[in-house]
């Protein structure tokens, strides 16, 4: 197949260029940027946001939003810490934390799909509710006594490589999410719902059930992110991952997912995620504070949505200019 210019006009292509540019900038800012240790640490730092972004991507493509992800992760961390502190076996504590995440997602999903409330308001409410519950569970304490194997999973790399264990978890989940979204009937139904929920309903898609399932998925992934974070810092605190929802939403939108649903790819989101990570890391190496870095991230977010809008316009115009392909073997008169 001949390479078309329109293929280069993909948002993902632009993200790759931006990512390369950021890497060039990073290595010119600080020699330590392009070292294995730094990249390994920076990647590990990004994995909780990445795991949450996978679930959120599915939710946003289906035309909804989940602002409660970081609070679910905080609640999961608090439950994990509370149980381990009471002498529960680690496996059971992790299972309970994940189950709590699934229940949080179910709560969001039922309110959105069954009661018919706007997900923006529901998850804004549960953002406060779940974070509040995290404080109720753990008070203002922090639990930092965990079995050695758990914290080693958080600190260490895969033996003989520079790949942190959390990155392995993220990669497996990202591949799974890719298969679900881009290679399965569920994925096609998710896009259909995001494009036009009514039309999807009339063509036999069980919109409510899929939406509930997506919120449950998002909740469980967020809870897993909370577990990973707890392992990496060997600390369960009720305010863990506070405010992470902003970076997660930004990564998804920067990746080219439309806030109105129906458009976007998982590859774009992963690129967006690493773009944010590389930017924050290289700016951090240049002694730019976290809050000042946010100026760049915020600008990038707005510009990226303007960019995807402009690109879409160009693609549509290009499509209109191209003459319609002749129907081959057309026997109709």
């Amino acid at each position, binding site marked *: 197949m001949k390479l078309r210019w329109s293929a280069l006009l993909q948002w993902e292509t632009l993200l790759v260029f931006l990512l390369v540019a950021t890497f060039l900038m990073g290595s010119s800012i600080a020699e330590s940027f392009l070292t294995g240790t730094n990249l390994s640490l920076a990647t590990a730092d990004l994995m909780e946001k990445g795991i949450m972004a996978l679930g959120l991507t599915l939710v946003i493509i289906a035309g909804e939003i989940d602002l409660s992800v970081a609070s679910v992760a905080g609640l999961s961390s608090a439950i994990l810490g509370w149980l381990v502190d009471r002498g529960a076996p680690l496996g059971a504590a992790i299972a309970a934390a994940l189950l709590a995440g699934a229940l949080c997602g179910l709560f969001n999903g039922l309110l959105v799909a069954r009661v018919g409330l*706007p997900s923006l308001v529901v998850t804004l409410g549960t953002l406060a509710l779940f974070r*509040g*519950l995290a404080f109720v569970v753990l008070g203002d304490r922090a639990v930092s006594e965990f079995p050695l194997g758990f914290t080693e999973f958080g600190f260490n790399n895969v033996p003989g490589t520079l790949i942190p264990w959390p990155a392995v978890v993220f990669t497996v989940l990202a591949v799974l999410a890719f298969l679900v979204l881009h290679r399965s009937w569920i994925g096609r139904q998710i896009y259909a719902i995001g494009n036009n929920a009514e039309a999807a309903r009339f063509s036999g898609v069980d919109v409510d059930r899929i939406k509930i399932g997506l919120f449950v998925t998002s909740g469980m992934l967020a809870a897993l992110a909370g577990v990973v974070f707890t392992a990496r810092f060997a600390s369960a605190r009720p305010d863990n991952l506070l405010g992470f929802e902003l970076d997660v*939403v930004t990564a998804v939108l920067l990746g080219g997912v439309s806030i109105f649903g129906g458009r976007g790819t998982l590859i774009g989101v992963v690129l967006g995620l690493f773009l944010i990570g590389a930017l924050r890391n290289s700016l951090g190496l240049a002694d730019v504070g976290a*809050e000042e870095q946010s100026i760049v991230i*915020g*600008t990038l977010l707005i510009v990226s949505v303007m960019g995807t809008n402009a690109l879409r316009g160009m693609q549509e115009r290009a499509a209109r200019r191209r003459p319609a392909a002749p129907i081959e073997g057309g026997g109709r008169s």
Partner: protein
Amino acid sequence: MPDSTATAPEPLDAPVLDRPRPRTARLLDVVGRVREVGIALALGLLVLVVAIQEPRFVRPGNIEEILLSVSILSIVAVGQTLVVLTRNIDLSVGSIVGVSAFVCADTMRGSPDLPIPLILILGILIGAGLGVVNGFLVTVGRVPAIVVTLGTLYIFRGVDFVIAEGDQVNAADVPDGFLDLATARVLGIPSLILFAVVIVAVASYGLRRWRSGRELYAIGSNPDAARLVGVPSGRLVFGAFVICGALAGLAGVLWAARFGTVDARAGSGLELAVVAAVVVGGVNIFGGSGTAYGAALGAILLGTIENALSILKLNPFWLQAIQGAVIIAAVTVDALITRRLQRALRKARRRA
């Protein structure tokens, strides 16, 4: 079918907004009023229950304390109401409050002789300027408001940190006249509360009586229809963002005056409380219905719950969870009432 052809088409030049409004619109109005009465009732019940447990709760001093603590929130919530009515949202208000609070406090420290009205105007102008950025990106840039203001939430806060350079303004550094802006009493009422009352009153009146106020509802109910009948949507949405920014700017000055101590973190996370107040106050997040005094009532309800928790010496950790639950309860009740009413209406129509 013959029914629809029987009614003569109305003349095109009839003032569209004065036509008898369709049933659903009136229905929404009823629900809206039910909402504000509902919040008032919930508030009354809460006050009653807590007062029985702890009479200190209803002492004038404590009531004043509650109103003081929600005044700034109410002012920002009124601005947010204007934006939400048009089916948009402004998540950057907390950051605007922060920039305005720091710049104004810093200015007062640098030049203590500056007349107080000037510093008020400075804060309002800063807020309006940042509101212009939001409004421009939404109306001209055609970027969804939630994306724009999520971005400017980051950007404005970052700018605040750049301006502050890790510095902090203390109450001792600014003249007393500036602190009086929030604490001075007029007719026995703290001026901060008066600011909030005046703004809520003007906004409520304007939304009801002024043409542009009514048009904000029209945009939110049906953006395409509003444009078709000649409502200048772009200009009004832009205006809503500018006013919302200006009110957040004013709230920033008052924040600095009330607390005296200001660093670059002032107002962080305020956007969540503001959106919560607006939603609890019965403003539809998809635009088209709600009132400014409803938003203020929402703010008062949330502030009263916070105060009640501390006065009853309940575990303060429950506060955030309860606030979240209140938001969800409010919108759930809303949805259920609307559904019930719609079903009743449909039944009535079938009988007719």
